[in-house]
């Protein structure tokens, strides 16, 4: 492809939160409003921002520890936020009314994602070494997809803590779920049959973030790991397609643009990078953040917007053309 993507800074909000900003996602547009940016922070709040000026719409409080993950329903009406104490709060985006509070017995909550239909919320279950699926109609726990433990000679040898699940991603058709563990393996599940399919290998440090390519038959899975690499997998074929290196520290977050052409990552090395998979290389590096970048998110539905949030308490918005 001759045309290459390019990022240009649009707006940056310093001290958007009082403490490190840890997570961000876009809430899709509804009939009455444009898409909004949802961010969560160590300061125990969740904030909503209106693009492109990043004007603060509302601050939601209620968590007792830092907010580690936020997720938005595809309808754009509801969203969920989760804090370090594993409490998930589901709320109405426009009114901030609490819809449900999810408390799974001793498990943990890390990355969360609604499925493309919006009927299920998948939660990376941390130490429980599983993905928890919550029904979005009843807000009950409907299923637990456990990562099988390796059949080593010593099964009790702290193997479950190695399978600590940090990240989760739905395939675009909603039939597959991927989850990443801290030993670097990625597990693929068949959702309709609630069955584990296989592991994807290649990372050897925690996998922080996963995202499927948005093509309808998307079997391409992008992963970000502490080993500083972004991998591309054929999720069905159980094979690594390629690896991209460039970040000098952990890659904390990866997202793919709605057209599937560009990949963005945020890293502990304080940069946001834009990658071209065909070239296997970073085509642009943004170093406007002064601390590690916890999340990057492309706005769904085009328009070419990318948001990044960082430990430096700021939020940045870029135009992506």
């Amino acid at each position, binding site marked *: 492809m001759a045309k290459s993507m390019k990022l240009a800074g649009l707006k940056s909000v310093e001290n958007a939160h009082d403490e490190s900003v840890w997570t961000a996602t876009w809430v899709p547009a509804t009939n009455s409003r444009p898409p909004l940016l949802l961010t969560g922070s160590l300061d125990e709040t969740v904030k909503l921002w209106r693009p492109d000026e990043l004007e603060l719409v509302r601050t939601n409080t209620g968590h007792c520890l830092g907010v580690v993950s936020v997720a938005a329903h595809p309808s754009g009406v509801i969203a969920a936020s989760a804090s370090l104490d594993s409490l998930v709060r589901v709320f109405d985006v426009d009114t901030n009314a609490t819809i449900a509070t999810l408390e799974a017995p001793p498990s943990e909550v890390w990355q969360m994602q609604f499925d493309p239909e919006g009927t299920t919320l998948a939660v990376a279950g941390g130490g429980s070494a599983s993905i928890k699926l919550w029904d979005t109609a009843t807000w009950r726990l409907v299923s637990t997809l456990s990562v099988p433990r390796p059949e080593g000679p010593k099964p*009790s040898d702290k193997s479950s803590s190695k399978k600590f699940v940090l990240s989760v991603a739905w395939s675009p058709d909603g039939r597959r779920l991927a989850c990443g563990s801290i030993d670097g393996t990625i597990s693929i599940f068949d959702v309709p049959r609630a069955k584990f399919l296989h592991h994807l290998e*290649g990372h*050897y440090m925690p996998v922080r973030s996963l995202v499927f390519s948005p093509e309808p038959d998307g079997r391409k899975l992008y992963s970000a790991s502490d080993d500083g690499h972004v991998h591309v997998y*054929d999720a069905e074929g159980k094979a690594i397609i390629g*690896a991209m290196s460039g970040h000098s520290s952990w890659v904390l977050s990866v997202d793919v643009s709605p057209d599937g052409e560009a990949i963005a990552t945020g890293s502990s090395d304080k940069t946001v990078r834009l990658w071209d998979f065909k070239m296997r290389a970073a085509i642009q590096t943004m170093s406007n953040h002064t601390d590690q970048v916890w999340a990057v998110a492309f706005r769904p539905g085009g328009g070419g917007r990318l948001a990044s949030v960082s430990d430096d308490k700021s939020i940045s918005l870029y135009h992506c053309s």
Partner: protein
Amino acid sequence: METTGELEGEERRRLEELLESNPDDSSLHFQLGVCLWETQTEKEKAAEHWVISVKQNPKNAAAFTYLGHYYATVSVDIPRAIKCYQRALSLNPDDSDSGEALCDLLDSQGKETLEVAICKDASHNSPRAFWAFRRLGFLQVHQKKWSEAVQSLQQAIRGYPTSPDLWEALGLAYHRLGMFTAAIKSYSRAIELEDTRVFALIECGNIFLMLGSFRKGIEQFQQALKISLQNMSALYGLASGLLGMAKECRNSGAFRWAASLLEDARKVAEASIKSAGNSSCTWKLHGDILLTYAQVFPWTEESQGLEYNAETFKNSVYSWKNTCGLAAISARNSYQRALHLAPWQANIYIDIAISSNLISSFNQDNTLDKCTWKLPEKLTLGALALEGENSEFWVALSCLSECNALKQHSLIRGLQLDVSLAYAWAYLGKLYREENEKKLARQAFDCARGIDPSLALPWAGMSADAHTGDSTPDDAFESCLRAVEIFPVSVDITFYALPKLAEFQIGLAKLALLSGNLSSSQVFGAIQQAVQRAPHYHESHNLYGLVHEARMQFQAAIASYRLARYAINISLGTVLKSHLKDISTNLARSLSKAGNAIGAVQECEDLKKEGMLDAEGLQIYAFSLWQLGENDLALSVTRALAASVSTMDRISAAVSVSFICRLLYYISGPDLAIGSILKIPKELFHSSKISFIVSAINALDQNNRLESIISSSRYFLASQEEITGMHYLIALSKLIKHGTKHHLGFQNGVNHLRKALHMYPNSILIRNLLGYILLCSEVWGNSHVSSRCSIVDDSDSKNKEGLKSAWEISSAGAVACHAIGNSEPRFSFPTCSCQCTSSGAMQELQKCLRREPWNHNARYLLILNLLQKAREERFPVNICIVLERLISVALSNEFYSGKEAICQYQKFQIYLCASEILLQRGNIMGCIDQAKNASVLSLPDSFQFFGHLLLCRAYAAEGNLKFSKEEYERCLELKTDFLVGWLCLKLMESQYEEQPASNIFELAFKEGSEGRNNSWNMWMAVYSLGMGLICLWNQDFLSAEEFLEQPCSLTSAESCIFLCHGVTSMEIARRYHDSQFLSSAIRSLSKAHITSSVPIPIVSALLAQAEGSIGSRKKWERNLRLEWFSWPPEMRPAELFFQMHLLARQIASESDSSSRVEGCQSPLQWVLRAIHTNPSDLRYWKVLPKLL
């Protein structure tokens, strides 16, 4: 119908009547004509009227049109019709009826030129003559005048924006002009308007394929096939789209994906062949699909858990080869059919040659006589015979030929024909390399890279040069990495036969081994591809194993090494023994690393039998034997290793010696090991690594026998990292060497580290150890120093250095401080002068937990910090809930099921936290349960004590004094080293009626404080404070004062002790009217005021009262004012307002009162505020009437 007929009749009658009265009105004639024309039967009459009409008004275009229709259809007088139409058009060029009719007439007569002329005329005369543009556009498309057609069609579309035909034609025009994006847009518009446009769908799909957007192309063809099931073009397009996508997948390395796409493509191509088997291009496509399939079909490992044995592996590789071979054979068959149908197509000869080459590479039967020309060569020559000027064919010949002279000739011939053939240059370079013509090779590669820098082969060639010593392994690795990464991207010619792919990947892995990049992700991906493509080659499995090993995945590594050995066994040619040795040694090492000592020993014994046990093998052997407890055997193997040290090079000798030292230490203990080490020749210790090992052994030896070796080997410590590491080790050894039986020599360690830190102020390793030791040393106040000396930095916390990381030290220090240092004085008034902020520690811990959610240590410290925060804020519900959740998460961690002391201890602390929270929230039963959980853990008595102490408190809170007493006595039995425990127990003791012999506590205190000279005073002060408090509870003020006076003279720091003493003294003064106590109260309270870092409420009020009692009004006033400011505004009690009223009344008479705080309101207002705050106090009400 009848009614309309009647209406028409009426109309006709009306017109006829009008015409009679006005026979010269041309429009009436025209209208009547139209009316008659409608009736079908009287068309001649109608024509007559029109003729009259045009005679009267020759400008009536519509009439001419109707006349034209009449002549064309009724009287069939074509020339006249044409004339009428022409007349109509010249009058009104926009008239589409006559225009279309005229053109249809001309068309039927075959007068195309005239037709075009008329359309051009009309379109020239009026820009709104859309019919003309449309007609013209179609005609121009028909005549292949594409650019003119585009203009006409665009104009026509303005008039007919929803005509799919026009859009389709426009798309075709753009398509032919090469304006693909515009063409796609036009075709898509046509499809949008009418979704059954098969032509548009197929053409659109073809454009997408041409542009490389295979996915979009495939969608279009699938859409087309839904409408037209057996459409040949759509089937062909779909198959080639799938092939294109598969190639894309192959190029990016996704072989399995490519294979599954090719399977689909094959089905489509076969469907197309079924409906039309005589199309050469379909057969060629089928051949292409199968050839690609043979090239990409990956070897797949069995699903997890199934281990291969030699037989199953052989079968698996055989079936893989078989699948590939069969696909290649069917590909060749398809190509032959294609060639049979179109023998003039030279490139099919090349295709057959390539597939033949592939088939023979799978069969590996070199039965053909070397002298005769091989099939691929022959066929290539066939192609060249047809098209001798095709440079690519010449390159193909060079690739398929086996004779180097012919290769060189054909490449040069190809380059003569086209000098910019980059890959020809690359192949030429490769050829020269093989011929060992380095200089020529480099020139050729440089040419290739100059023309196309994205070509893989030159890069690979550059990396191959590394072996000659021209470049470092790192450079070579980089070059090869580039080759592997870009290789798939640039497969634009098919004779990059894929079995060669694995060569690059294997080469990359080998270079990675040399340059230490084995754990890199790119290498992992490459070697995985190599295994998929060359499962029969032992090296790919061996390297895969090495990569796994570098990533600490030992089980996978073991499996790979085993496969490598099977691969050696099934390969036909002779294998070097050294390969087998390498693989077996690797296997033994991985087995040993994976903890399978028995397996490792077995492998080593097998190697020994073959006589292939080298130094590495001996080390593994000895180590595994030691693991199995076979110490004697291990020692004998070590001896064999020691004997061979003298023959090794320096690096491996150093490795062997350090191994020997460590093993000796583990097997024979320090004394014997030191004896043996002293016997080893000194020059073997000339390495920094050995220096560390010897120093560590020496640290445990009180006699310092190894001192001389150490001092000589330390000379080899070079980098700052090594030197600070050595300081670290020395500090630890000082802890041991200068320590007593119960206490480590903390002070010596601290002293050494301070010096080291002075030399290397940026060494995080030393800082952290210093912090850790300070924290461990239990010296009052050191916890603050320790948090200060370690620097918490996010980027460094990932690489944990030393025993504890900075955040662990700082947050543990924060827990250790008795004053959490709340930023809001709403909850408490910290008297600690250090002003450390635990909120900072809390944030750091949360950040750490975000970074490493699995880190149970961070969670543990967060729980402790949160508990301190909750304690300070009087256990608010929300923090308690969070704590309970965190605790339940923490306890579910498998770490705490461990039996190690550290696990048990942390678990104990977590249980105590849980119990404490339940106690504070009033859930005594739960509290007792948790405390019991804690006290059953197997821990030293010193810790157990605290479990029972909590039980004791819980029972007391429940009112069950009997049980409480039992627990109390249990505590007395257990005893503890922690003085604070004794103090708490003492406080508990005061609850019971009877007074046991209290000197247990004094004894325990004396015992516990041995060796803690620094903090002895502080502990005594706290003890006295406790005793004083107990006396206060018992209303024994005089003894309380005695107790409290002691610490007041001991220490000068803690304001709370002064406060207690002051309060007690004041109470005594009040009760016994003893002014001496009053003055001592004033002394203590003043000190309390001075020493406290934040103003403590009540102190000043009491001081004011005391000063007031001895008659010092000024001091009373001043202190009362101070009191006002020492309260946070929202917490000021009613009494304070009341006191302020007194103050205000006092100074009401004075002049400059307004500037003071009490003057801002009248005494009345002050009292009203007091009453408002606390309406239940009658004193305030009593004062009120006096002020009104």
